[in-house]
Protein backbone atom coordinates (compact mmCIF):
# COMPACT_ATOMS: atom_id res chain seq x y z
CA UNK A 1 0.00 0.00 0.00
CA UNK A 2 1.14 3.52 -0.74
CA UNK A 3 -0.18 5.94 1.83
CA UNK A 4 0.36 9.62 1.23
CA UNK A 5 -0.45 11.96 4.06
CA UNK A 6 -0.75 15.72 3.68
CA UNK A 7 2.30 15.74 1.49
CA UNK A 8 3.44 19.22 0.53
CA UNK A 9 6.33 20.70 -1.37
CA UNK A 10 7.30 24.31 -1.82
CA UNK A 11 9.93 25.68 -4.13
CA UNK A 12 10.71 29.08 -2.69
CA UNK A 13 7.39 30.84 -2.49
CA UNK A 14 5.73 28.52 -4.97
CA UNK A 15 3.59 25.82 -3.44
CA UNK A 16 3.97 23.05 -5.99
CA UNK A 17 2.16 20.41 -4.00
CA UNK A 18 -0.26 21.53 -1.37
CA UNK A 19 -1.16 18.98 1.25
CA UNK A 20 -2.09 15.95 -0.79
CA UNK A 21 -3.44 12.81 0.88
CA UNK A 22 -4.50 9.52 -0.64
CA UNK A 23 -3.84 5.81 -0.43
CA UNK A 24 -3.38 3.29 -3.19
CA UNK A 25 -3.87 -0.41 -2.56
CA UNK A 26 -2.58 -3.48 -4.24
CA UNK A 27 -4.55 -4.22 -7.38
CA UNK A 28 -5.31 -0.58 -7.96
CA UNK A 29 -4.09 1.51 -10.84
CA UNK A 30 -4.24 5.12 -9.86
CA UNK A 31 -4.16 7.72 -12.59
CA UNK A 32 -2.78 11.13 -11.77
CA UNK A 33 -4.38 13.72 -13.95
CA UNK A 34 -3.70 17.37 -14.16
CA UNK A 35 -2.47 20.11 -16.41
CA UNK A 36 1.26 20.63 -16.78
CA UNK A 37 2.72 22.13 -13.67
CA UNK A 38 -0.10 20.94 -11.45
CA UNK A 39 2.26 18.98 -9.21
CA UNK A 40 1.92 15.45 -10.57
CA UNK A 41 5.61 14.88 -11.13
CA UNK A 42 6.61 16.58 -7.91
CA UNK A 43 4.31 14.28 -5.96
CA UNK A 44 5.79 11.26 -7.69
CA UNK A 45 9.31 12.46 -7.01
CA UNK A 46 8.48 12.68 -3.34
CA UNK A 47 6.92 9.22 -3.21
CA UNK A 48 10.00 7.77 -4.90
CA UNK A 49 12.22 9.55 -2.32
CA UNK A 50 13.94 11.71 -4.89
CA UNK A 51 12.67 14.93 -3.36
CA UNK A 52 12.22 15.47 0.35
CA UNK A 53 8.76 16.84 1.14
CA UNK A 54 8.47 20.25 2.78
CA UNK A 55 5.90 18.75 5.11
CA UNK A 56 3.76 15.67 5.41
CA UNK A 57 4.85 12.13 4.74
CA UNK A 58 4.29 9.10 2.62
CA UNK A 59 4.66 5.41 3.33
CA UNK A 60 5.35 2.71 0.82
CA UNK A 61 4.81 -0.80 2.16
CA UNK A 62 4.83 0.83 5.60
CA UNK A 63 8.31 2.25 5.09
CA UNK A 64 8.49 5.97 5.53
CA UNK A 65 10.02 7.79 2.57
CA UNK A 66 12.05 9.95 4.90
CA UNK A 67 13.20 7.40 7.45
CA UNK A 68 13.76 4.41 5.20
CA UNK A 69 14.36 5.73 1.70
CA UNK A 70 16.42 2.73 0.63
CA UNK A 71 13.70 0.25 1.62
CA UNK A 72 11.20 2.33 -0.31
CA UNK A 73 13.44 2.53 -3.37
CA UNK A 74 14.06 -1.19 -3.32
CA UNK A 75 10.33 -1.84 -3.57
CA UNK A 76 9.43 0.74 -6.18
CA UNK A 77 9.93 0.62 -9.90
CA UNK A 78 10.08 4.19 -11.10
CA UNK A 79 9.88 5.53 -14.60
CA UNK A 80 10.75 9.22 -14.38
CA UNK A 81 9.32 11.71 -16.84
CA UNK A 82 10.90 11.40 -20.29
CA UNK A 83 12.65 8.22 -19.15
CA UNK A 84 16.21 9.40 -18.48
CA UNK A 85 18.95 6.82 -18.95
CA UNK A 86 22.69 6.84 -19.40
CA UNK A 87 23.05 7.68 -23.04
CA UNK A 88 26.68 6.69 -23.25
CA UNK A 89 25.82 3.06 -22.43
CA UNK A 90 24.23 0.41 -24.56
CA UNK A 91 20.87 -0.98 -23.53
CA UNK A 92 22.26 -4.26 -22.23
CA UNK A 93 24.95 -2.63 -20.09
CA UNK A 94 22.50 -0.12 -18.74
CA UNK A 95 20.10 -2.82 -17.62
CA UNK A 96 22.98 -4.86 -16.22
CA UNK A 97 23.91 -1.82 -14.17
CA UNK A 98 20.44 -1.40 -12.74
CA UNK A 99 20.26 -5.16 -12.10
CA UNK A 100 23.52 -5.00 -10.17
CA UNK A 101 22.32 -2.08 -8.10
CA UNK A 102 19.06 -3.91 -7.47
CA UNK A 103 21.15 -6.65 -5.89
CA UNK A 104 21.23 -9.35 -8.55
CA UNK A 105 24.32 -11.41 -9.27
CA UNK A 106 25.70 -13.75 -11.86
CA UNK A 107 23.20 -15.82 -13.81
CA UNK A 108 20.18 -14.30 -12.10
CA UNK A 109 21.31 -10.86 -13.13
CA UNK A 110 21.80 -11.86 -16.73
CA UNK A 111 18.52 -13.76 -16.87
CA UNK A 112 16.56 -10.83 -15.55
CA UNK A 113 18.08 -8.49 -18.07
CA UNK A 114 17.43 -10.87 -20.94
CA UNK A 115 13.86 -11.37 -19.82
CA UNK A 116 13.35 -7.62 -19.68
CA UNK A 117 14.80 -7.20 -23.16
CA UNK A 118 12.16 -9.63 -24.34
CA UNK A 119 9.27 -8.18 -22.37
CA UNK A 120 9.98 -4.69 -23.61
CA UNK A 121 10.88 -5.70 -27.18
CA UNK A 122 14.39 -4.39 -26.87
CA UNK A 123 16.27 -7.40 -28.15
CA UNK A 124 17.07 -5.83 -31.51
CA UNK A 125 18.67 -2.79 -29.97
CA UNK A 126 20.32 -4.45 -26.98
CA UNK A 127 23.81 -3.53 -28.19
CA UNK A 128 23.04 -0.05 -29.39
CA UNK A 129 24.03 3.03 -27.48
CA UNK A 130 20.95 4.51 -25.83
CA UNK A 131 21.99 7.82 -27.36
CA UNK A 132 21.21 6.46 -30.83
CA UNK A 133 17.73 5.19 -29.97
CA UNK A 134 14.43 6.83 -30.84
CA UNK A 135 12.14 8.26 -28.20
CA UNK A 136 9.93 5.18 -28.23
CA UNK A 137 12.84 2.84 -27.60
CA UNK A 138 14.21 5.04 -24.84
CA UNK A 139 10.84 5.00 -23.17
CA UNK A 140 10.92 1.21 -23.30
CA UNK A 141 14.41 1.16 -21.84
CA UNK A 142 12.99 3.22 -18.99
CA UNK A 143 10.21 0.70 -18.63
CA UNK A 144 12.61 -2.22 -18.60
CA UNK A 145 14.66 -0.54 -15.92
CA UNK A 146 11.56 0.04 -13.78
CA UNK A 147 10.23 -3.51 -14.12
CA UNK A 148 13.51 -5.35 -13.84
CA UNK A 149 13.15 -6.30 -10.18
CA UNK A 150 9.47 -7.12 -10.54
CA UNK A 151 8.53 -4.48 -7.98
CA UNK A 152 5.36 -4.50 -5.97
CA UNK A 153 4.96 -0.79 -6.52
CA UNK A 154 5.20 1.04 -9.78
CA UNK A 155 5.37 4.76 -10.23
CA UNK A 156 5.17 5.76 -13.85
CA UNK A 157 5.45 9.37 -14.92
CA UNK A 158 3.79 9.67 -18.32
CA UNK A 159 4.55 6.11 -19.35
CA UNK A 160 3.17 6.33 -22.89
CA UNK A 161 4.77 9.65 -23.71
CA UNK A 162 6.53 9.51 -27.06
CA UNK A 163 5.16 6.14 -28.08
CA UNK A 164 3.26 5.51 -31.28
CA UNK A 165 -0.39 4.43 -31.06
CA UNK A 166 0.43 0.71 -31.30
CA UNK A 167 3.07 0.94 -28.62
CA UNK A 168 0.67 2.92 -26.47
CA UNK A 169 -1.84 0.10 -26.69
CA UNK A 170 0.84 -2.44 -25.80
CA UNK A 171 2.02 -0.45 -22.82
CA UNK A 172 -1.52 0.07 -21.60
CA UNK A 173 -2.23 -3.63 -21.88
CA UNK A 174 0.98 -4.34 -19.99
CA UNK A 175 0.04 -1.91 -17.23
CA UNK A 176 -3.45 -3.36 -16.95
CA UNK A 177 -2.01 -6.85 -16.70
CA UNK A 178 0.47 -5.84 -14.02
CA UNK A 179 -2.19 -3.87 -12.19
CA UNK A 180 -3.76 -7.06 -10.94
CA UNK A 181 -0.94 -7.88 -8.57
CA UNK A 182 0.78 -4.57 -8.18
CA UNK A 183 0.07 -1.16 -6.86
CA UNK A 184 0.51 1.33 -9.65
CA UNK A 185 0.51 5.10 -9.81
CA UNK A 186 0.77 6.66 -13.22
CA UNK A 187 0.52 10.20 -14.37
CA UNK A 188 -0.78 11.29 -17.70
CA UNK A 189 -2.50 14.11 -19.43
CA UNK A 190 -4.13 11.79 -21.92
CA UNK A 191 -7.63 11.36 -20.64
CA UNK A 192 -8.47 8.34 -22.73
CA UNK A 193 -5.56 6.63 -21.06
CA UNK A 194 -7.15 7.07 -17.68
CA UNK A 195 -10.36 5.55 -18.95
CA UNK A 196 -8.51 2.71 -20.64
CA UNK A 197 -6.16 1.80 -17.83
CA UNK A 198 -6.94 3.25 -14.44
CA UNK A 199 -9.23 1.86 -11.81
CA UNK A 200 -9.16 5.20 -10.08
CA UNK A 201 -8.25 8.73 -11.00
CA UNK A 202 -7.11 11.73 -9.03
CA UNK A 203 -7.26 15.10 -10.66
CA UNK A 204 -4.72 17.59 -9.40
CA UNK A 205 -4.95 21.28 -9.99
CA UNK A 206 -2.61 23.86 -8.49
CA UNK A 207 -1.06 21.32 -6.19
CA UNK A 208 -4.34 20.20 -4.67
CA UNK A 209 -6.55 17.20 -5.24
CA UNK A 210 -9.68 18.50 -6.92
CA UNK A 211 -11.31 15.16 -7.64
CA UNK A 212 -10.77 11.56 -6.61
CA UNK A 213 -12.81 8.65 -7.87
CA UNK A 214 -13.24 6.01 -10.53
CA UNK A 215 -13.11 7.35 -14.08
CA UNK A 216 -16.79 6.42 -14.19
CA UNK A 217 -17.65 8.53 -11.17
CA UNK A 218 -15.66 11.45 -12.51
CA UNK A 219 -17.44 11.27 -15.80
CA UNK A 220 -20.73 11.42 -13.94
CA UNK A 221 -19.79 14.92 -12.87
CA UNK A 222 -19.89 16.01 -16.46
CA UNK A 223 -22.82 18.05 -17.75
CA UNK A 224 -22.98 15.57 -20.54
CA UNK A 225 -23.61 12.63 -18.25
CA UNK A 226 -27.05 11.13 -18.88
CA UNK A 227 -27.66 13.23 -21.96
CA UNK A 228 -29.10 11.53 -25.00
CA UNK A 229 -27.70 12.25 -28.43
CA UNK A 230 -30.07 11.58 -31.28
CA UNK A 231 -29.58 11.45 -34.98
CA UNK A 232 -32.94 11.58 -36.65
CA UNK A 233 -33.82 11.20 -40.26
CA UNK A 234 -37.10 12.05 -41.84
CA UNK A 235 -39.18 14.37 -43.95
CA UNK A 236 -40.85 16.20 -41.20
CA UNK A 237 -38.26 17.35 -38.80
CA UNK A 238 -39.05 21.00 -38.78
CA UNK A 239 -40.89 20.88 -35.55
CA UNK A 240 -38.97 18.06 -34.07
CA UNK A 241 -36.63 20.35 -32.26
CA UNK A 242 -39.32 22.10 -30.30
CA UNK A 243 -41.13 18.81 -29.87
CA UNK A 244 -38.25 17.14 -28.17
CA UNK A 245 -38.27 19.69 -25.40
CA UNK A 246 -41.61 18.28 -24.32
CA UNK A 247 -40.15 14.96 -23.27
CA UNK A 248 -40.51 14.54 -19.55
CA UNK A 249 -37.30 15.14 -17.72
CA UNK A 250 -35.58 17.03 -20.51
CA UNK A 251 -34.19 20.32 -19.43
CA UNK A 252 -33.07 21.59 -22.77
CA UNK A 253 -32.34 20.44 -26.27
CA UNK A 254 -29.29 21.36 -28.17
CA UNK A 255 -28.70 21.22 -31.87
CA UNK A 256 -25.45 19.64 -32.93
CA UNK A 257 -23.53 20.59 -36.00
CA UNK A 258 -20.71 18.62 -37.47
CA UNK A 259 -18.19 20.64 -35.53
CA UNK A 260 -19.82 19.44 -32.38
CA UNK A 261 -19.10 15.85 -33.12
CA UNK A 262 -16.21 15.55 -30.72
CA UNK A 263 -18.74 17.08 -28.33
CA UNK A 264 -16.49 19.28 -26.27
CA UNK A 265 -18.53 22.27 -25.29
CA UNK A 266 -22.05 22.20 -24.07
CA UNK A 267 -23.59 25.13 -25.83
CA UNK A 268 -25.97 27.54 -24.27
CA UNK A 269 -29.60 27.46 -25.18
CA UNK A 270 -29.32 30.71 -27.07
CA UNK A 271 -26.63 29.43 -29.37
CA UNK A 272 -28.71 26.38 -29.92
CA UNK A 273 -31.63 28.47 -31.09
CA UNK A 274 -29.42 30.29 -33.51
CA UNK A 275 -28.12 27.16 -35.07
CA UNK A 276 -31.68 25.93 -35.27
CA UNK A 277 -32.62 28.85 -37.47
CA UNK A 278 -29.60 28.29 -39.62
CA UNK A 279 -30.61 24.71 -39.92
CA UNK A 280 -34.13 25.49 -41.01
CA UNK A 281 -32.82 27.78 -43.65
CA UNK A 282 -30.63 25.12 -45.15
CA UNK A 283 -33.47 22.62 -45.03
CA UNK A 284 -35.53 25.04 -47.10
CA UNK A 285 -32.63 25.71 -49.40
CA UNK A 286 -32.20 22.10 -50.12
CA UNK A 287 -35.87 21.70 -50.86
CA UNK A 288 -35.62 24.35 -53.53
CA UNK A 289 -32.46 23.11 -55.05
CA UNK A 290 -33.37 19.54 -55.71
CA UNK A 291 -30.12 18.50 -57.21
CA UNK A 292 -26.94 16.84 -56.19
CA UNK A 293 -25.56 20.16 -55.03
CA UNK A 294 -27.70 19.88 -51.97
CA UNK A 295 -25.43 17.14 -50.73
CA UNK A 296 -22.84 19.67 -49.84
CA UNK A 297 -24.90 21.13 -47.08
CA UNK A 298 -23.38 20.19 -43.81
CA UNK A 299 -26.70 19.44 -42.18
CA UNK A 300 -27.21 16.26 -44.13
CA UNK A 301 -30.16 17.24 -46.29
CA UNK A 302 -30.53 15.12 -49.37
CA UNK A 303 -32.48 15.26 -52.62
CA UNK A 304 -35.44 13.28 -51.40
CA UNK A 305 -36.42 16.22 -49.30
CA UNK A 306 -35.76 14.27 -46.18
CA UNK A 307 -33.23 15.69 -43.81
CA UNK A 308 -31.34 14.59 -40.78
CA UNK A 309 -31.14 16.25 -37.45
CA UNK A 310 -28.61 15.81 -34.70
CA UNK A 311 -29.72 16.92 -31.32
CA UNK A 312 -28.71 16.35 -27.76
CA UNK A 313 -31.19 16.19 -24.92
CA UNK A 314 -29.95 17.26 -21.55
CA UNK A 315 -31.82 15.84 -18.58
CA UNK A 316 -32.88 17.69 -15.49
CA UNK A 317 -30.55 16.94 -12.65
CA UNK A 318 -30.67 13.33 -11.58
CA UNK A 319 -33.37 12.31 -14.06
CA UNK A 320 -32.88 9.43 -16.47
CA UNK A 321 -34.36 10.29 -19.84
CA UNK A 322 -33.14 7.55 -22.11
CA UNK A 323 -36.29 5.51 -21.79
CA UNK A 324 -38.64 8.46 -22.26
CA UNK A 325 -36.70 9.72 -25.21
CA UNK A 326 -36.75 6.35 -26.92
CA UNK A 327 -40.48 6.05 -26.52
CA UNK A 328 -41.08 9.56 -27.70
CA UNK A 329 -39.04 9.08 -30.84
CA UNK A 330 -40.82 5.83 -31.47
CA UNK A 331 -44.25 7.45 -31.21
CA UNK A 332 -43.32 10.12 -33.71
CA UNK A 333 -42.15 7.42 -36.09
CA UNK A 334 -38.94 9.24 -36.83
CA UNK A 335 -36.17 7.21 -38.34
CA UNK A 336 -33.35 7.00 -35.88
CA UNK A 337 -29.83 6.84 -37.25
CA UNK A 338 -28.18 6.95 -33.88
CA UNK A 339 -29.25 6.95 -30.31
CA UNK A 340 -26.49 7.42 -27.77
CA UNK A 341 -26.71 7.66 -24.04
CA UNK A 342 -23.77 9.85 -23.09
CA UNK A 343 -21.62 8.63 -20.24
CA UNK A 344 -20.11 12.01 -19.72
CA UNK A 345 -17.01 13.65 -20.96
CA UNK A 346 -13.85 13.42 -18.89
CA UNK A 347 -12.34 16.26 -20.88
CA UNK A 348 -15.06 18.58 -19.78
CA UNK A 349 -14.81 17.53 -16.14
CA UNK A 350 -11.07 17.95 -16.31
CA UNK A 351 -11.38 21.37 -17.91
CA UNK A 352 -13.85 22.65 -15.39
CA UNK A 353 -12.05 21.27 -12.36
CA UNK A 354 -8.63 22.52 -13.30
CA UNK A 355 -9.85 25.95 -14.39
CA UNK A 356 -11.51 26.49 -11.07
CA UNK A 357 -14.98 26.08 -12.56
CA UNK A 358 -17.77 23.89 -11.27
CA UNK A 359 -18.29 20.51 -12.81
Amino acid sequence: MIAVESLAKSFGSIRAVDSISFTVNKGEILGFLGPNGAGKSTTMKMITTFLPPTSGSAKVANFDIWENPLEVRARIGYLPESAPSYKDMNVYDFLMFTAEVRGYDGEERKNRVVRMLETCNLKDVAWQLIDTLSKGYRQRVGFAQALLHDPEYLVLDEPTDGLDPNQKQEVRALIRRMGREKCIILSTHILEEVEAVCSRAIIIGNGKIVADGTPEALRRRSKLHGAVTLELFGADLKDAFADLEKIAGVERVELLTDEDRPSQNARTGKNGKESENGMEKSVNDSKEAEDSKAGKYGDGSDKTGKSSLRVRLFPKKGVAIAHEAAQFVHQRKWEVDAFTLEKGDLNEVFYNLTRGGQA
Partner: protein
Amino acid sequence: MRNLKAVLKRELKGYFESPVAYVFIIIFLLATAGCTFFISRLFDTRVASLDAFFVWHPWLYLFLVPAVGMRLWSEERKSGTIELLFTLPITLIEAIAGKFLAAWLFIGIALLLTFPMVVTVAYLGSPDYGIIFTSYIGSFLLAGAYLAVTCLFSAMSKNQVISFVLAVVACFAMLMLGAGVFTDFLNGFLPVGISEAISAFSFFTHFQNFQRGLIDSRSLIYFISMIGFMLTANAVVLEMKKAE
Protein backbone atom coordinates in the same frame (compact mmCIF):
# COMPACT_ATOMS: atom_id res chain seq x y z
CA MET B 1 29.76 -0.93 -0.72
CA ARG B 2 28.35 -3.20 -3.36
CA ASN B 3 26.59 -0.32 -5.06
CA LEU B 4 29.65 1.84 -4.75
CA LYS B 5 31.40 -0.77 -6.86
CA ALA B 6 28.57 -0.75 -9.37
CA VAL B 7 28.70 3.03 -9.74
CA LEU B 8 32.50 2.98 -9.92
CA LYS B 9 32.53 0.33 -12.62
CA ARG B 10 29.92 2.14 -14.64
CA GLU B 11 31.78 5.45 -14.50
CA LEU B 12 35.18 3.97 -15.24
CA LYS B 13 33.80 2.04 -18.17
CA GLY B 14 32.17 5.25 -19.31
CA TYR B 15 35.57 6.93 -19.49
CA PHE B 16 37.12 4.22 -21.59
CA GLU B 17 34.14 3.87 -23.89
CA SER B 18 34.33 7.49 -24.93
CA PRO B 19 37.24 9.28 -26.59
CA VAL B 20 37.67 11.40 -23.45
CA ALA B 21 39.89 8.80 -21.85
CA TYR B 22 42.28 8.50 -24.74
CA VAL B 23 42.45 12.21 -25.40
CA PHE B 24 43.14 12.83 -21.75
CA ILE B 25 45.81 10.16 -21.44
CA ILE B 26 47.60 11.20 -24.60
CA ILE B 27 47.57 14.87 -23.69
CA PHE B 28 48.68 14.14 -20.16
CA LEU B 29 51.59 12.01 -21.34
CA LEU B 30 52.64 14.43 -24.05
CA ALA B 31 52.40 17.40 -21.73
CA THR B 32 54.36 15.83 -18.89
CA ALA B 33 57.03 14.60 -21.28
CA GLY B 34 57.14 17.92 -23.11
CA CYS B 35 57.50 19.95 -19.94
CA THR B 36 60.08 17.61 -18.47
CA PHE B 37 62.31 17.34 -21.51
CA PHE B 38 61.87 20.62 -23.33
CA ILE B 39 61.19 23.15 -20.61
CA SER B 40 62.96 21.69 -17.61
CA ARG B 41 65.58 20.10 -19.86
CA LEU B 42 65.94 16.93 -17.84
CA PHE B 43 68.93 15.75 -19.87
CA ASP B 44 70.83 19.00 -19.40
CA THR B 45 70.49 18.87 -15.62
CA ARG B 46 72.60 15.72 -15.62
CA VAL B 47 70.79 14.57 -12.49
CA ALA B 48 69.05 11.21 -12.33
CA SER B 49 65.99 12.52 -10.57
CA LEU B 50 62.38 13.08 -11.52
CA ASP B 51 62.07 16.48 -9.83
CA ALA B 52 61.86 18.08 -13.24
CA PHE B 53 58.94 15.77 -14.00
CA PHE B 54 56.91 16.10 -10.82
CA VAL B 55 57.30 19.85 -10.54
CA TRP B 56 54.92 20.25 -13.44
CA HIS B 57 52.11 18.12 -12.03
CA PRO B 58 50.34 20.81 -10.02
CA TRP B 59 50.12 22.95 -13.16
CA LEU B 60 49.08 20.26 -15.57
CA TYR B 61 46.50 18.85 -13.18
CA LEU B 62 45.10 22.32 -12.83
CA PHE B 63 43.47 21.94 -16.24
CA LEU B 64 43.41 18.24 -16.82
CA VAL B 65 41.75 17.11 -13.60
CA PRO B 66 38.80 19.51 -13.88
CA ALA B 67 38.43 18.30 -17.48
CA VAL B 68 38.09 14.73 -16.23
CA GLY B 69 35.76 15.53 -13.37
CA MET B 70 33.55 18.28 -14.74
CA ARG B 71 30.97 15.92 -16.20
CA LEU B 72 30.53 13.76 -13.10
CA TRP B 73 27.48 15.57 -11.72
CA SER B 74 26.79 18.26 -14.32
CA GLU B 75 25.95 15.66 -16.90
CA GLU B 76 23.90 13.67 -14.45
CA ARG B 77 21.82 16.71 -13.57
CA LYS B 78 21.50 17.96 -17.10
CA SER B 79 20.27 14.70 -18.58
CA GLY B 80 18.00 13.96 -15.64
CA THR B 81 19.67 10.65 -14.87
CA ILE B 82 20.28 11.94 -11.37
CA GLU B 83 16.61 11.20 -10.74
CA LEU B 84 17.20 7.65 -11.83
CA LEU B 85 20.36 7.30 -9.78
CA PHE B 86 18.80 8.57 -6.58
CA THR B 87 15.67 6.49 -6.86
CA LEU B 88 17.70 3.32 -7.18
CA PRO B 89 18.66 1.76 -3.86
CA ILE B 90 21.97 3.62 -3.77
CA THR B 91 22.96 5.91 -0.93
CA LEU B 92 24.27 9.38 -1.54
CA ILE B 93 27.64 8.38 -0.12
CA GLU B 94 27.93 5.36 -2.39
CA ALA B 95 27.12 7.45 -5.44
CA ILE B 96 29.52 10.26 -4.58
CA ALA B 97 32.35 7.98 -3.54
CA GLY B 98 31.78 5.70 -6.53
CA LYS B 99 32.01 8.52 -9.00
CA PHE B 100 34.95 10.15 -7.29
CA LEU B 101 36.92 6.93 -7.05
CA ALA B 102 36.23 6.09 -10.69
CA ALA B 103 37.66 9.39 -11.87
CA TRP B 104 40.53 9.18 -9.41
CA LEU B 105 41.37 5.69 -10.55
CA PHE B 106 41.28 6.85 -14.12
CA ILE B 107 43.76 9.63 -13.39
CA GLY B 108 45.82 7.06 -11.49
CA ILE B 109 45.97 4.90 -14.59
CA ALA B 110 47.17 7.87 -16.62
CA LEU B 111 49.76 8.57 -13.95
CA LEU B 112 51.02 4.98 -14.02
CA LEU B 113 51.47 5.26 -17.75
CA THR B 114 54.23 7.79 -17.13
CA PHE B 115 56.47 4.88 -16.06
CA PRO B 116 58.80 5.39 -19.04
CA MET B 117 60.06 8.45 -17.15
CA VAL B 118 61.23 6.19 -14.36
CA VAL B 119 62.77 3.84 -16.88
CA THR B 120 64.60 6.76 -18.46
CA VAL B 121 66.22 8.04 -15.28
CA ALA B 122 66.95 4.48 -14.19
CA TYR B 123 68.78 3.96 -17.46
CA LEU B 124 70.71 7.21 -17.16
CA GLY B 125 71.83 6.88 -13.59
CA SER B 126 70.81 5.61 -10.20
CA PRO B 127 67.88 7.66 -8.94
CA ASP B 128 66.51 7.59 -5.43
CA TYR B 129 63.55 5.25 -5.89
CA GLY B 130 62.18 6.23 -2.49
CA ILE B 131 61.74 9.80 -3.61
CA ILE B 132 60.20 8.72 -6.88
CA PHE B 133 57.75 6.50 -5.01
CA THR B 134 56.67 9.16 -2.51
CA SER B 135 56.46 11.71 -5.30
CA TYR B 136 54.07 9.47 -7.18
CA ILE B 137 51.99 9.08 -4.02
CA GLY B 138 52.01 12.84 -3.55
CA SER B 139 51.06 13.43 -7.15
CA PHE B 140 48.18 10.97 -6.90
CA LEU B 141 46.90 12.60 -3.70
CA LEU B 142 47.19 16.02 -5.27
CA ALA B 143 45.12 14.84 -8.22
CA GLY B 144 42.56 13.50 -5.75
CA ALA B 145 42.32 16.86 -4.01
CA TYR B 146 41.86 18.65 -7.33
CA LEU B 147 39.28 16.10 -8.32
CA ALA B 148 37.31 16.51 -5.10
CA VAL B 149 37.18 20.26 -5.71
CA THR B 150 36.03 19.56 -9.26
CA CYS B 151 33.30 17.20 -8.03
CA LEU B 152 31.97 19.94 -5.80
CA PHE B 153 31.77 22.45 -8.64
CA SER B 154 30.39 19.85 -10.98
CA ALA B 155 27.47 19.41 -8.60
CA MET B 156 26.90 23.15 -8.56
CA SER B 157 26.22 23.67 -12.23
CA LYS B 158 24.41 21.77 -14.92
CA ASN B 159 26.77 23.35 -17.39
CA GLN B 160 30.04 21.47 -17.74
CA VAL B 161 31.93 24.50 -18.96
CA ILE B 162 30.93 26.52 -15.93
CA SER B 163 31.86 23.62 -13.67
CA PHE B 164 35.24 23.41 -15.39
CA VAL B 165 36.05 27.09 -15.13
CA LEU B 166 34.99 27.37 -11.50
CA ALA B 167 36.94 24.24 -10.62
CA VAL B 168 40.10 25.56 -12.32
CA VAL B 169 39.83 28.88 -10.48
CA ALA B 170 39.22 27.18 -7.14
CA CYS B 171 42.10 24.75 -7.63
CA PHE B 172 44.36 27.59 -8.66
CA ALA B 173 43.45 29.47 -5.48
CA MET B 174 44.16 26.39 -3.36
CA LEU B 175 47.49 26.04 -5.06
CA MET B 176 48.53 29.67 -4.75
CA LEU B 177 47.83 29.84 -1.02
CA GLY B 178 51.28 28.41 -0.53
CA ALA B 179 53.16 30.21 -3.27
CA GLY B 180 56.06 32.37 -2.11
CA VAL B 181 54.68 35.52 -3.71
CA PHE B 182 51.35 35.16 -1.97
CA THR B 183 52.91 34.35 1.42
CA ASP B 184 55.20 37.39 1.13
CA PHE B 185 52.21 39.52 0.33
CA LEU B 186 50.34 38.24 3.39
CA ASN B 187 53.39 38.77 5.58
CA GLY B 188 53.16 42.44 4.70
CA PHE B 189 50.13 42.96 6.90
CA LEU B 190 49.52 39.71 8.79
CA PRO B 191 51.52 38.14 11.60
CA VAL B 192 53.81 35.42 10.28
CA GLY B 193 51.88 32.79 12.26
CA ILE B 194 48.67 33.48 10.41
CA SER B 195 50.21 33.66 6.96
CA GLU B 196 51.95 30.36 7.66
CA ALA B 197 48.68 28.85 8.78
CA ILE B 198 47.12 29.96 5.53
CA SER B 199 49.91 28.56 3.46
CA ALA B 200 49.53 25.32 5.39
CA PHE B 201 46.21 24.92 3.60
CA SER B 202 47.84 25.01 0.23
CA PHE B 203 47.96 22.03 -2.09
CA PHE B 204 51.42 23.12 -3.09
CA THR B 205 53.02 23.03 0.34
CA HIS B 206 51.83 19.51 1.01
CA PHE B 207 52.65 18.27 -2.44
CA GLN B 208 56.24 19.46 -1.95
CA ASN B 209 56.55 17.47 1.25
CA PHE B 210 56.11 14.28 -0.72
CA GLN B 211 58.78 15.33 -3.19
CA ARG B 212 61.32 15.36 -0.39
CA GLY B 213 61.05 11.61 -0.17
CA LEU B 214 58.95 11.27 2.90
CA ILE B 215 55.36 10.50 3.54
CA ASP B 216 54.55 13.16 6.04
CA SER B 217 51.55 12.03 8.03
CA ARG B 218 50.35 15.62 8.30
CA SER B 219 50.34 16.00 4.54
CA LEU B 220 48.70 12.63 4.13
CA ILE B 221 45.98 13.60 6.59
CA TYR B 222 45.72 16.98 4.92
CA PHE B 223 44.97 15.52 1.50
CA ILE B 224 42.61 12.89 2.80
CA SER B 225 40.65 15.31 4.93
CA MET B 226 40.61 17.84 2.09
CA ILE B 227 39.07 15.20 -0.16
CA GLY B 228 36.62 14.22 2.58
CA PHE B 229 35.62 17.81 3.17
CA MET B 230 35.09 18.59 -0.51
CA LEU B 231 33.04 15.45 -1.05
CA THR B 232 30.91 16.25 1.98
CA ALA B 233 30.28 19.68 0.54
CA ASN B 234 29.51 17.91 -2.72
CA ALA B 235 26.83 15.87 -0.94
CA VAL B 236 25.26 18.97 0.60
CA VAL B 237 25.21 20.81 -2.71
CA LEU B 238 23.70 17.80 -4.47
CA GLU B 239 20.93 17.50 -1.92
CA MET B 240 20.14 21.16 -2.39
CA LYS B 241 20.41 21.29 -6.14
CA LYS B 242 19.26 17.92 -7.40
CA ALA B 243 15.68 19.01 -7.86
CA GLU B 244 16.54 21.88 -10.19
